[in-house]
């Protein structure tokens, strides 16, 4: 049951759209910065497989410029 946090850097002007798409996922909490185009994403997946799938979805979002994995806990 991994818990992970990421920094998501959307492309310029795409932050709102990225937040909207992220907020559709379960087990995922998002925290946009107030003054920069960066979003903190915390995922709490039941299974490793779900976590991997979610990461693939993130990678396929063309509005995201860069994703940084910051921390990961296997619980």
């Amino acid at each position: 049951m991994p818990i992970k946090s990421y920094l998501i850097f959307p492309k310029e002007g795409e932050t709102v759209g990225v937040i909207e798409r992220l907020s559709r996922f379960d087990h995922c909490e998002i925290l946009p910065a107030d003054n920069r185009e960066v979003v903190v994403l915390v995922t709490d997946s039941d299974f490793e497989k779900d976590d991997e799938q979610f990461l693939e979805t993130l990678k396929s979002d063309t509005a995201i410029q860069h994703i940084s994995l910051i921390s990961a806990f296997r619980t």
Partner: protein
Amino acid sequence: MERKAYIVTEQSRRNFLKQLAATSAISAATTMLPNVTFAGVEKLSGNDKLTWKKSPCRFCGVGCGLLIGLQNGKAVAVKGDPDCPVNKGLCCVKGYHSVMALYGKDRLRKPLLKRNGKWVEVTMTEALDVVANKMKETIDKHGKDAVAMYGSGQWTIPDGYAATKFMKAGIGTNNIEANARLCMASAVTGFMTSFGLDEPMGCYEDIDHADVFVLWGNNMAEMHPVLFSRLLDQRLKRKSIIIDLCTRTTRTSLSADKSILFTPQGDLALANAICYELINNGWVNRRFVEQHCVFKRGKTNIGYGLEDKFQFADEPTDSDFTDFKNFLTDYSPAKASALCGVSIKDIKYLAQLYADPNKKVMSLWCMGTNQHTRGTWINNQIYNIHLLTGKISTPGNSPFSLTGQPSACGTVREVGTLTHLLPHGTVTNEKDRKFAAEIWNVPVEKIPAKPTFHTVEMFRALDRGEIKFMWIQVTNPMVSMPNLKRYRNGALKEDRFIVVSDVYPTPTTDVADVILPSAMWIEREGMFGNSERRTQHFEKMLEPQGECMSDTWQIIEVAKRMGYGSLFPWTKGNHIEEIWKEYTRFHDGPDHAMASYEELKKKSGILWPYVNGKETKWRYHAKYDPAAKGDSFDFYGKPGGKAWIWARPFEPAPEVPDNDYPYWLCTGRVVEHWHTGSMTRRIPVLHQAVPHAYVELNVQDAANMNIRTGDKVKLISRRGELVLPASVNERGQPPRGQVFVPFFDEGFLINELTIDAFCPISREPEYKKCAVKVMKA
């Protein structure tokens, strides 16, 4: 006592890990993006039910405002306080994780008494009885100067006030010192000798106005990361220039526009060379100097304090501009370059930056200049540059001495928890003693007129046996004292009695006879005072764990037991407010007036002097400072309102590398850990980031000795030796012939190697320079 560095929490483990994950990501974001804020953090992990309360950060002297998230009687989250002008919502990695330091598994929660060599849990009442009885017994047998108190720049203002009142007005001894002697004393004597009053003339708002930042031996990126992010922000917005003057390449060097290496102790020559250039190129602001400065010379060849009972008193003599100019002929760029290792071109470049009439210049410094056997001198010399150019006491023109601890200024310097100080003035001044005696309602004869021991000498007196009883609060001298073995052996001598108030076991509690568990930070009410004269109040947000008690109340309880209860006629409920009211009577004037208790409770810190509801951002200029007379500058701490420009020469360090000990050793901190690591090493994220100390080596030196990162390296000084892992070409990179070791790790006591020499004026020890051998272990 076995110690482990990890924490536990009783909240949901998953929620805790999610909070940790979020906090780590926020920390990473704030490192990458200066001033980024996440005000919605409370919505994470069901934290919308949190109650948020303001507090200054527990750790460094920057004084960042935090908002502490409270839930079910626990502190569970932290975010930067957007209303605090210090950090404007930003925190560093220590600040974001600060509340985790409350919940270490081995937190001291019960008083401990050593009986027959073993620790026994006792009640707080019994422990306080033992402390009071032992203190009384020692005074009866050996006199009042046989007992001592050693505190900290992490004492809250009420802690320090209660301690100094207890010792000076109760017992009647000046045997009180604090660890700020080890970090800020040279800054104080620098201010006092140049301006006659302590603490900076400017404030952090100078950062928003300055065009040039010159960092004198100050690794701000790691030691003052939030302020450094403000510098970087100004560089992005206004193309300000950051100059890093350093003895080793650090993260600050990598972020600076220009990094200039100087040889250890070479700063004395470099500063004089800049003055030489200012004068010889006609760049002096003559009008400012004529109207607002005088010139002085002091004693030279002043020694290093290596002998017990070393005495020194400087004797200023009058000088003038011509004499100062002649003095500087020994510091032409060519001559100075040979002493400091800085190229002639770079010396001239620095002088031009300071001189440029279109540039506002801010100098910043901290331990590199203060922990220096000529610490007072180099402080004076930086002021000399600003005074010669008239770049001072106006927005953006600011020589700014940074502090290391959250209340080194607020408590130690302003309350006066040093042997020679009172809350206002010094013990040697009869008027100051009378003023204190009047407020404390004691006969003036009660307050001794003669200072006793500064910190190094206090521990020497403990070793010699002149001090038999020492009460240590909120500090860890058995990690932080230089030439440590001598002072640990002294503390362990048979007829010494050591009381330690702390929140975790440390090497200092290891030498204790009684351990008092302290209420930590937001488990009690208090105030800190940061580097920029900002007083910051925090309320009691949590119940103390176990039998923990605030340091203030511990002192009051012992004082009552010893018959000094009339000095502390307050209740547990009102004593902080009453202490504040009494203490601020000492500063009741336009040069140091402080905000009321009620105002401090409302705001995220208030700068003093605080007059008619207005903060004083720049002292010594009539436009900004209500205490300044006339229509421009008035350095009213000195006679005639004139600041002193000092002729201070280059003199070598007390111990320089030679054939037997060919390397310089420098010590310091890392961003992840606070001081001796007793709190931050119990925060998993910080502990895992830097789990142990290491020795940084120059790449070429390491190659010559066939040393790689992780290899064991032995360091030997004339005082001790230590084996620790190598770090080559990693975070910091010393020049050839130098090594660096951080001091946060009690597992690698680097201060067993450092030298207990000190600045004869400030009595602050040298932690940045001594000579060692280096070999592969």
